[in-house]
């Protein structure tokens, strides 16, 4: 019994000590993010990237000569959990800035809490337009909004492909529908005629019926908004039916991740798609970060990781200018951010109805010889685009 109470006393001491002794020479930051559930993969990638950046910062001089100590709180991509985590961080731990979360639903919940408690919140990878359109003063977003996601592709259409007609295939959930609607608007602006707009249920087995309709309609461009397995099946069946259009375009998501290449194989060749970031970006530190991540975890990170990684440098920059670890000082410093990071230049602006939104170039990538190559805008290009693309018959 005595030993037990002694042990308990020690345990008690150990849990107390880090807070009381090291608090003075370290910044403690708890980050909410999904580590379980469907979005766990992305949460994991962000966690590694946050930690990687913090280790780099600490290996140099830290922030204001203090160490940055990270801890992570699992929200499981559930808004109500994310909400209570952040309430705890602000009310109990008095953390003066919140960084993190992934899904738009969670980010919205966290944004509301942060605004209410006048604590700055930096959004890393949540794309819903509404998050930075609510006249919130304390919510900042580093990644591009959904509405601007396709900018790069539209620009590429305008400058290079000059298509007159488009056919749109999309999966029937909110994600596919909003993507398809955005494309219809863009097509109007570009003067493209929408020949066909067909939805399908995600998980379908046979796309040949609608694909033969696409073939009969003969559009210049085929635009598809799909999740990854649908994307692979679509391209495989397109190859088999030998549907030739000027360009196959994916609306990000399923077309921009390595699994698409693994499953669609050679049918994926020459497909272009929008994305926010690639390891080939010519931003300072981008390549180093991507290679370091790959060396440690065997795969290249996607923009989610890059954004998380850069967020720690944004935080460092902000705290160094804020001089004070309080919400008000941090708010002012964050607002004045103008930093070049591995994720691109970051500056929070109020325009187009958004508040504290970072506007960035969105990219176009093309699959060339089984690898994602950045092709547009030209200043970021890792390879020249291949256009016009060969017909399926010529490819054999």
């Amino acid at each position: 019994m005595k030993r037990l109470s002694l042990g308990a006393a020690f345990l008690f001491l150990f849990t107390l000590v880090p807070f009381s002794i090291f608090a003075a020479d370290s910044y403690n930051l708890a980050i909410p993010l999904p580590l379980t559930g469907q979005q766990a993969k992305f949460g994991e990638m962000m966690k590694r990237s946050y930690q990687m950046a913090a280790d780099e910062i600490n290996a140099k001089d830290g922030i204001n000569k203090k160490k940055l100590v990270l801890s992570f709180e699992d929200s499981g991509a559930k808004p109500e959990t994310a909400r209570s985590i952040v309430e705890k961080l602000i009310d109990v731990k008095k953390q003066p800035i919140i960084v993190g979360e992934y899904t738009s639903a969670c980010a919205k919940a966290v944004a509301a809490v942060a605004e209410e408690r006048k604590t700055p919140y930096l959004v890393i990878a949540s794309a819903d337009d509404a998050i930075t359109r609510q006249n919130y003063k304390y919510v900042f977003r580093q990644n591009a909004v959904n509405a601007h996601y396709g900018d790069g592709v539209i620009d590429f259409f305008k400058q290079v492909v000059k298509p007159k007609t488009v056919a749109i295939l999309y999966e029937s959930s909110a994600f596919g529908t909003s993507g398809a609607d955005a494309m219809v608007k863009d097509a109007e602006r570009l003067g493209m005629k929408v020949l066909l707009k067909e939805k399908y249920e995600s998980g379908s087995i046979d796309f040949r019926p609608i694909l033969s309709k696409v073939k009969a309609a003969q559009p210049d461009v085929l635009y598809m908004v799909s999740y990854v397995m649908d994307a692979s099946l679509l391209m495989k069946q397109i190859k088999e039916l030998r549907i030739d259009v000027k360009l196959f375009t994916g609306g990000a998501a399923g077309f921009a991740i390595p699994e698409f290449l693994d499953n669609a194989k050679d049918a994926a060749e020459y497909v272009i798609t929008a994305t926010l970031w690639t390891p080939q970006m010519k931003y300072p530190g981008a390549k180093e970060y991507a290679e370091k991540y790959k060396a440690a975890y065997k795969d290249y990170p996607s923009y989610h990781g890059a954004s998380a990684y850069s967020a720690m440098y944004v935080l460092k920059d902000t705290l160094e200018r804020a001089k004070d670890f309080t919400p008000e000082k941090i708010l002012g410093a964050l607002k004045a951010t103008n930093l070049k990071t591995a994720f691109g230049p970051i500056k929070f602006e109020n325009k187009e109805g958004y508040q504290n939104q970072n506007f960035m170039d969105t990219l176009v990538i093309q699959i060339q010889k089984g690898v994602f190559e950045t092709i547009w805008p030209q200043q970021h290009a890792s390879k020249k685009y291949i256009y016009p693309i060969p017909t399926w018959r010529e490819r054999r």
Partner: protein
Amino acid sequence: MTSVQIEVLLQTVISGIFLGGLYALLGIGMTLIMGVMKIINLAHGELMMVGMYIAYALFSFFHIDPYLSIFIAAPALFLLGVMLQKFLINPVLTVESILPENQVILTVGIGMVLSNLATIFFTSDYRSTPVEYATKAWYISDFWKGSPIELSISFAWSVSFFFAVLITALLWFFLAKTDMGKSIRATAQDTDAALLMGVNVKKMRIITFGLGAALVGAAGCLFIPIYYLYPDLGGQFTLIAFVITILGGLGSTVGAIVGGLILGLFESLTATYIGMGWAPIGRFVIFIAALIFIPGGIVSLLKKQRFG
């Protein structure tokens, strides 16, 4: 009709028949169990998922072609089915309960356990077997240079369809010509009479459940080269098999074959001429229409023709 329209129609019909052939194999397993056990096996899609994971594992670890893994997956599923029937479903048959059909509820539970086990062992990631011939196809213009229309027939889909037909034919031979097949049919027609004629009904039930599981396991091996795989995929295929079983007439193998083909064709034609988003709705329209207008299923229509 212009040649383009003809091309679209023919390509749609080809797709529909291929899809229907696979659906038929899916439905036969369920209808067989339905006939003998008088219950709907709601773990049917999950059993197919197990078959697909076996094919996937064999492909990724030993590079065994998914089509060859039928010879491993089908016997494995047969054993699994036998076990399930012997140790789970048969005991429940004898238990007094409030619900008359608590075996059906049991199959739902079995399905949940199977899909959760798959999540534990294989995670919930999407899997597929990227075979070499995945996008290989035959083109009409390769055989007939001046063809006014271009049609393609997928190699993988053709092979899957061929195997589906072959397995169905073997099953028909088994049920029609062998003693055991006859005993199974006798059990399906009248359990008490079969019992009186000296058929070991309990054994027949076990074998039938195993056979149904083996058939759907084989269907899984035929699906994986043209589709993909994840632990929760079972539900949608259980539903398809259920619709086919109702459409074909409960317990009728011929009905399941015809029902599968009709459903496949119907889905393809809906996709082309109404919209692919409507395919799931079309499936239920068929389901409800079958319940209202031909409650005995297609097989009842066939019988009327013959004897009427």
